[in-house]
């Protein structure tokens, strides 16, 4: 039996980390970290075959971050899952820290690939998935993507190729929070109707509420069972989720809270 209350607790812990890390650093990306928190908590704590005591084990599932600006989330979820000491989170974005503003492949255990340039992670994930299929490997590839990121042409090149090569061991997790930097995706460059586009590109599409753990887990289960097609989980999310004054506000894409704001946020995120 899956423990949803436990996942919710983990989610709140990660959200508190996100606030503390960005406040301490004085920069970073809270909005898109908070929108994808529940997706990543579910993936790392319930779904993905990963082992912090053996982070490079051969049969691990590979998680590739295509929207890699959400390092507060990435580092927090890895630390809380046991890949490294959460104390290190305090050094985020400081000179000399392994926790760079955008992840480097060799920075901490659990990071599969460097990232920070949008639109490329999905191609990396596809190459990884194709290699897995060549070797008849049991592991799967998960790729976290932003909705603004889908504006990159390369994303659609990868989508086309993934269906062409029947990469059914590849699951794209699309954080559809409706916002990017300059405003809503609708105003900046509309990506809808997304599920129709993905289906037309040969993908199996699964939609879910990206903050409902029951729905998230069900979506991952369905993805795993899909044969012959790559799968896209379109997760409907709220950018800045969990912090009232950040929710649905593009201002908080790449801005750190100050001390007062952080305290207010932490109060809302308390257990």
């Amino acid at each position, binding site marked *: 039996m899956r423990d949803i209350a436990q996942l919710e607790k983990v989610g709140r812990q990660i959200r508190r980390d996100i606030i503390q890390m960005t406040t301490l650093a004085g920069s970073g990306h809270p909005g898109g970290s908070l929108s994808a928190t529940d997706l990543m908590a579910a993936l790392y704590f319930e779904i993905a075959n990963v082992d912090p005591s053996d982070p490079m084990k051969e049969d691990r599932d590979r998680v590739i971050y295509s929207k890699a600006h959400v390092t507060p989330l990435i580092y927090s979820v890895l630390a809380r899952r046991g890949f490294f000491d959460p104390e290190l989170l305090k050094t985020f974005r400081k000179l000399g820290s392994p926790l760079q503003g955008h992840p480097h492949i060799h920075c901490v255990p659990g990071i599969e690939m460097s990232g920070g*340039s949008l639109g490329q992670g999905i191609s990396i994930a596809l190459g990884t998935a194709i290699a897995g299929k060549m070797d008849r490997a049991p592991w799967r590839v998960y790729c976290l993507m932003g909705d603004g990121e889908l504006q990159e042409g390369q994303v659609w090149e990868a989508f086309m190729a993934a269906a062409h090569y029947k990469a059914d061991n590849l699951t794209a997790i699309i954080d559809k929070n409706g916002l990017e930097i300059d405003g809503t995706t609708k105003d900046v460059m509309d990506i809808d109707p997304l599920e129709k586009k993905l289906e037309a590109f040969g993908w199996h599409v699964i939609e879910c509420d990206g903050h409902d753990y029951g729905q998230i887990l069900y979506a991952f289960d369905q993805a795993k069972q899909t044969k012959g097609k790559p799968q896209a989980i379109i997760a409907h999310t709220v950018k800045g989720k969990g912090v009232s004054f950040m929710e649905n506000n593009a201002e908080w894409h790449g801005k750190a809270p100050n001390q007062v704001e952080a305290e207010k946020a932490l109060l809302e995120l308390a257990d």
Partner: protein
Amino acid sequence: MEPKATRFGYSEALLMLGEKDDRIVALDADLAKSTSSARFRDKFPDRFFNMGIAEQNMVDVAAGLALSGKIPFASSYGVFVTGRAWEQMRTMVCYSKLPVRIAGHAGVSVGADGATHQALEDIAIMNVLPNMHVFSPCDYYETIKATMAAAYVDGPAYIRFGRAPIPIITEVDSPFEVGKATIMKKGSDVTVVATGTMVNEALIASADLANFGVSVEVVNLSTIKPLDGETILNSVAKTGCAVTAEEHQITGGIGSIIASFLSLNLPVPLEMVGMGDRFGESGEPFELLKHFHCNSCEIVQACLRAISRRQTSRVVL
């Protein structure tokens, strides 16, 4: 005046250009706030196009606009607008010599975003393109002038600006001419050719060295291409040694550019300050400049090395 980020000079110029010439259009790739092109968007919404996070498409759309008589300025992070869209710039824009202007923030002083977002190769990959103009202004006022001038050059242009506030070291009415380097300080012992943020560092180095009786000539290379060979030759003929300073990879940057120019025209001892074939890191802008040896202390050391090499080579001769 307070220090000011050069990116705001870019948008200030766009506003002035937009006012007097309605062929001016601006494009951005979901970074209008960061590059500050949002100011143009707010004033001239009909002449601004947010292309979304799609830099390659943005640059070729700008080329199409240019083909039809518009004067497009397209901006993003320097890394993405020059790097992601490089082949579009090469084969479509530069080969056809279209008046497309691209611009972005560059250098380690981009700060805590880290290596992925710190353009340290942009000068190299833009300078190598035929027909290109490369501007690397040293402060807010000069960025306004470089952007204004870029609008009307014959062919494509790249304007490199910065994200962190830096001191203002020129005047509103200081001269600026495309393809002309300016002497910021006269001197006789060593020539420092600096660009962008490093011009101010060179001035500081020159003041420090003056205390020890060393006279430094500071050349501000605000246009990197076309290169102002005459100003550099005149200065180096007088001083007999030179130092380059840039917030960019030395290889392919003005280190390489000045080295090849001087070795063909007037070989003298040359020292180079800049990024030494490595990626940047996360940190505070000025902390990073120091960490990566891109500051006045390094320029002082490089000047002393250049002068001492000149003296030894004279003995050998």
